[in-house]
Structure formats: structure tokens, C-alpha cells
């Protein structure tokens, strides 16, 4: 059963989080994500959860991590400048295998840039922005419905992999209101429980250890230093570090195929659009406007880990066109994997690609 | 000296109407093009600044100007009468 609502994207994300079981929100206001926090401030107390506005984004993510260790599902929401500030502690969450969700409603950067305009400029930042090697999970909604659904999914992935999951939204989707079907119940994944007798960071075959929630007598030491399976710091043993980092990266990256989440349209196409977030709306409009052209579309809902195998779904592709609200960030990734031309269609400044613009690019590429 | 409100800047907050000891400003009644009710001036020549600024060579009250959050209040100098030659073209 679902309930029809007319809802703002940011509100849908907050609702999705609550449905997924989020009971701790720590945040710091920033345009264009603030509505997520504001809705949480209203709703959390009624659900027995905790909303706290921290002194900054560093403290926000820190509090979220602390809360996660008490067993809570926890999240924060922010945008570019705040996201930049969170990066150190995002690395800590990765290193300590803390499940949590970060919503980044992207606005125009660099720097303070265009606070109220849409962008997708943080797509590589979320993947490579903290120091050291790592893997993360990143989803990109292209509708208010997906703000809801993919927030739920972000929680489920975060819990399953004990790894931060990002909802990489954009101002357009975050701020727009549209129809959404709110489900009665959603599928919820919980972190794997800790099995007493094992070591706190001893992983199973899936390379994910059970979660030794604080306060239950496990006496777990959690540190951002390189650590052994007991959680104790071991900082000068190269093999230990190598094994740890490869496990942390591998548990996510190697699940690439299994967790891939994308939509394929016209797999026989010669010209294929790869898209995610707001520009996907334009691409879908274009395809709808030209039903006979058989335009290919690979729409990513989960962007990281990048589903490179999905590119093979278009065996006839002569070119991949990648419209993004950035200078071709995901296009760079596509270039690594294909040998046909990759054509980034970068639109900066906050406006959405129009169907006409993409039609022109399409014509041009088809004519090549 | 003559007290003026820059209509381009005034946003109609009415703080000037509140702070002037001589109650020289009173709330405007007619919205301007931007929809703003700019205060009207009631015998501004009573203003300390208008009267004495030139004499003492410095700002003497200026509370309304300091207060006006929109930098809309100022004084322009009133020049003594000068004949102006007007050329009319046919």
C-alpha cells in the first residue's frame, strides 16, 4: 500500500530516513539541504529519536558516528562546503566501519559559489575526497520519489556494508516538489549483529564484521588508526595495514555487480546517454520525445561503486554521451572503461540541460 | 542642507519614524513602484542637522542616518538661488 503525497525532495529524503529506521540526526544548516534538518527537528522527537543541531559539520558527522556506535541508525545532511568539512571524519567512519548516511544536496562550487543553484560537482569528491584509499557507496536520485527510495536504500547499504553511504542529490531534485507514492512499509536491512566470542573487527566471508554495539559488554576499542581484529592500534605493520585497507575497499568494490542499481533503455542503441540525478530527467524527456530513435540510456541510481559492467549492456554503442552538472566527473570514470568516444555535456551554473540542448548533441553525435 | 530619503534604497522599515526626536519622519501611505511605503518628511527644516550642520561643520544628530539600515537617509546641500539659462529649441 502506498499513499500519494505532494512533497519536496528534501522532505522525502527525511521521510525515507525515518522509514528506514533513522533515529539520530546531527546536522548543521546549509542551503540547499536545510529542509532535511528542519523536518527532522519536527519529527524526530515524536518518534523518540534525537535531533541535534551541532556547532558545525565536523561535529555533526562526529556526533552521527558516536550515535551509530550506540546502535542507532544515524544520518546527517549537508551541501558542498559542509561536505568538504566532513571529509576527515568520513574517513574515520570508513576506517571504523561505522554505518551512516550522508545526504549531500549539491550546489554550485567551488567554494561558496552558488549557494542556491544546482550542481553535481561533488561526485568525485565523495569518492576521493578523504585522504588515503577507500571505497564508499553513493546514490543519485532523479525524482522526489527517489529521494525517498534511495535514502532508504542508502541506509540499507550502509548497514549491510558498515560503510558510509551518500545520497548525492542536487538542488533541483532536493528543492522541487512533486508527486510521490509513500509506501506503508519499506524493506529494512539492519547491521549484522556481533557474535560474542569473536573478535570485534573479525570479518566474515563477506569481509564485514558483526557490529559490537556499545553498552552491551563487548568492550570494543574503536580507533581510526590501523588496527588488528581486536580493534587495537597497530600502526607500523605494513601487512596489517595492507590487509585492512584492502578489506575495507574490497567489501564494497567487489560487491559492485551484486548491488549495482541502474536502468537500461534501448540496449541496442548506438548512441547511449549515461545519466544520474536531475539531468536524467532531461534525458528521459528526450527519449520520450523521440520514441523512434532508439536512444540508449544508462541511468545510474547507484553511482559508486561504479557499475562498469553495465557499459557492456550496450554492445553496439558508438559513443557515450554524459550530461552532467559538472565538468564531466562521471564521464572521466566512463573513459576508463570504454574505447569508444565519451562525450561529456557539462552544464554549469545551476540550470538543467534542456531537451533541446541534448537533442542537438544527440544529432551531432549520431551524425558522426 | 536638505534632508532626503533615497527612494531607491529605502525599504520602508519605519525605523526613522521611531528614532527622530523631532518626529520629522512619518510612515508613508502610498506604495512606490517596488511596493514600498517610503516615509514622508514633516517640516525637515526642524532637523538639528539641517539647521546647524553647515554652521558647525559637522554632523550634529544623524541618529536617523546611523539607524537607517538601508543607507537611504542623507543630506544634500541646498545651493543659494542661481539663475539658470534655459535654451529653448524650436
Amino acid at each position, binding site marked *: 500500500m502506498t499513499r500519494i503525497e505532494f512533497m519536496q525532495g528534501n522532505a522525502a529524503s527525511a521521510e525515507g530516513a525515518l522509514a528506514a529506521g533513522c533515529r539520530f540526526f546531527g546536522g548543521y544548516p546549509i542551503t540547499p539541504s*536545510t529542509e532535511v534538518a528542519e523536518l527532522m527537528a519536527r519529527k524526530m*522527537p515524536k518518534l523518540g529519536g534525537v535531533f541535534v543541531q551541532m556547532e558545525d559539520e565536523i561535529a555533526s558527522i562526529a556526533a552521527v558516528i558516536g550515535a551509530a556506535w550506540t546502535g542507532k541508525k544515524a544520518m546527517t545532511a549537508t551541501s558542498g562546503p559542509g561536505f568538504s568539512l566532513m571529509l576527515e571524519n568520513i574517513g574515520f567512519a570508513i576506517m571504523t566501519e561505522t554505518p551512516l548516511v550522508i545526504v549531500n544536496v549539491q550546489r554550485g562550487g567551488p567554494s561558496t559559489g552558488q549557494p542556491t543553484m544546482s550542481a553535481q560537482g561533488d561526485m568525485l569528491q565523495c569518492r576521493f575526497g578523504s585522504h588515503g584509499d577507500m571505497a564508499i557507496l553513493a546514490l543519485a536520485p532523479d525524482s522526489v520519489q527517489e529521494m525517498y527510495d534511495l535514502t532508504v536504500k542508502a541506509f540499507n547499504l550502509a548497514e549491510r556494508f558498515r560503510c558510509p553511504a551518500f545520497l548525492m542529490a542536487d538542488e533541483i531534485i532536493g528543492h522541487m516538489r512533486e508527486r510521490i507514492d509513500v509506501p506503508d512499509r519499506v524493506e529494512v536491512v539492519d547491521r549484522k549483529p556481533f557474535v560474542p566470542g569473536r573478535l570485534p573487527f573479525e570479518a566474515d566471508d563477506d569481509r564485514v564484521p558483526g557490529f559490537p554495539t556499545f553498552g552491551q559488554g563487548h568492550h570494543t576499542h574503536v580507533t581510526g588508526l590501523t588496527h588488528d581484529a581486536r580493534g587495537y592500534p597497530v600502526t607500523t605493520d605494513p601487512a596489517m595495514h595492507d590487509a585492512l585497507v584492502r578489506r575495507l575497499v574490497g567489501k564494497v568494490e567487489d560487491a559492485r555487480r551484486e548491488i549495482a542499481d541502474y536502468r537500461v533503455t534501448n540496449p541496442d542503441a548506438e548512441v547511449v546517454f549515461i545519466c544520474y540525478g536531475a539531468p536524467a530527467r532531461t534525458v528521459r524527456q528526450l527519449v520520450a520525445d523521440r520514441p523512434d530513435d532508439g536512444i540508449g540510456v544508462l541511468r545510474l541510481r547507484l553511482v559508486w561503486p561504479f557499475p562498469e559492467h553495465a557499459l557492456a549492456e550496450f554492445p553496439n554503442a558508438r559513443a557515450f554521451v554524459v550530461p552532467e552538472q559538472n565538468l564531466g566527473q562521471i564521464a572521466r570514470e566512463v573513459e576508463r572503461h570504454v574505447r569508444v568516444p565519451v562525450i561529456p555535456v557539462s552544464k554549469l551554473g545551476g540550470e538543467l540541460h534542456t531537451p533541446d540542448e541534448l537533442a542537438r548533441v544527440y544529432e551531432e553525435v549520431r551524425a558522426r | 542642507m536638505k534632508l532626503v530619503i533615497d527612494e531607491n*534604497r529605502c525599504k520602508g522599515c519605519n*525605523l526613522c*519614524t521611531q528614532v527622530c526626536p523631532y518626529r520629522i519622519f512619518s510612515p508613508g501611505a502610498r506604495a512606490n513602484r517596488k511596493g514600498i511605503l517610503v516615509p514622508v518628511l514633516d517640516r525637515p527644516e526642524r532637523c538639528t542637522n539641517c539647521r546647524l550642520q553647515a554652521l558647525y561643520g559637522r554632523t550634529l544628530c544623524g541618529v536617523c542616518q546611523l539607524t537607517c*539600515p538601508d543607507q537611504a537617509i542623507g543630506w544634500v546641500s541646498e545651493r543659494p538661488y542661481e539663475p539658470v539659462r534655459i535654451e529653448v529649441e524650436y
Partner: protein
Amino acid sequence: MTFTDWLRADRLPHIWCSGCSNGTILNCTLAAVEAEGWDRDRTVFVSGIGCSSRAPGYVATDSLHTTHGRALAFATGVKLAEPSLNVVVFTGDGDLAAIGGNHFIHACRRNVDMTVVCMNNLIYGMTGGQGSPTTPLGALSTTTPYGASEPAFDLVALAVAAGANHVARWTAYHVKELEKAVKTGLETPGLSFIEVRAGCPTNYGRKNRIREVTDMADHFRTRSMLKTKYDRLVAEGKPVPADAIVVGEFVRRANPAMGVAP
């Protein structure tokens, strides 16, 4: 020259809402630097992010509009690198005391020779009215929909404890006193911190039943209590109204300072 000569006329009208105190505080500060005879070519205004932090953008000097909360750290760099420049920082309660709290106390500790004017409207104006660390208990904001439940900072107490050489508080209603306090700040070697209670009719006023701009001015006028009176009441063990805004000078001292021009 008057303070209006310090304005970037080509940028007016500014972005502040009608009745916002920021414009008033800007005027008073510029009146003080003008009265002090500072050179526009040798004066730098620095700020972070927020409505208040837009102020330097309206001043016709070199101006550095930085990142949220970091104004004092940037200003420290400017001042230590070139002590002969005059440095004034505009900031807001969120910018200074939420995200910028660390730079606030460290700038006070270092006692860097500059003047910091905080437009404290008890709320985050720029982002649409969320609670700030100075939002009073019980006050409404978009993130305190049931009334603020966290204790608030006393910014003046913090500045004093952290080491600033000059600390004062006024409200946007006290334009003359404020001008004078800023002027004292400019003259005091070391860090001068001036908290100015500011009205944000759009966000704070609307949510907390101080809807009219002139009501906010009345609020400031009637709730303010001179520090001398406050001290007297306290000494006499007499009650002080809970919502009193204690105004005046809290400290003026000559502790070691950094970045003082030789």
C-alpha cells in the same frame, strides 16, 4: 568625509531585508572608522558567511568575504602578515560562535590587534531561521520548533575568558553608544570584541512574535540594562530580569597583544 563615503554606492541597495539591523550596525562601524580617521586604502574588512557577513561587500575598501566561520582565522593571517593594515571583522552569531567558535576564542587569546563586530540576531538569518548558539532557551526557530532547549552562549563572557583586551555589548538601537564602543575598540591595542544585538525581522522576529521592526527596536530599548546598573543590582543581591540585555563595556585592559603595528 562622512561614513557614507565608505560605502560601495554601486552595490546599494543591499540584500538585507527591510528593517534588518545589519545596515544600522554597518553605519555605526563605518562612522567609527571615519571618526578615527582611518585610511580607506589601509583598512581591510573581513567576514565569514551569513547575512551579517555580507557587510564587507558594501564597504569601499579591500574586503575579504571568506568561508563560514573562518573570518577571524583569515583576519589573523592578514593582520600578522601586515600589521600596518587596519583590520575590522564583521560576523554573525552563527559564523562567530557556532562554526567559528574556535577561531573566536583563539583570536581573543592571541589578542590579535583588530576589532570584531558581531551582529548577533540570535538566529541563522541567511539560511532561513535556524537556531544558533545564542538562541535563548524557549525561542522558536525552524530547528527548534518546540522552543530552543540548549543553553545559550554569553559571547561577552567567552571573549573575556579567552583573553580579549576590549569587550563590549550594545544593541542596534544604541547607535551612538555603538559607534563609540567601536571607536574604543579601534583604539585599543589587541582584540576588541563588540557584540551587537541585532534584529532579524524576517526570521527571528516573525517566529518569536516581534513582528514589527519598530517592536524590535522597542524591545532593545526596554530590555537593555547598563552594565553599571546590572553590577549594582547583583552586588545588592537584587533580582535582574531574566531577559535583560546587559549593555556597556565589560573589559578594557592592556594584556600582551599580537600584530600591533610598530
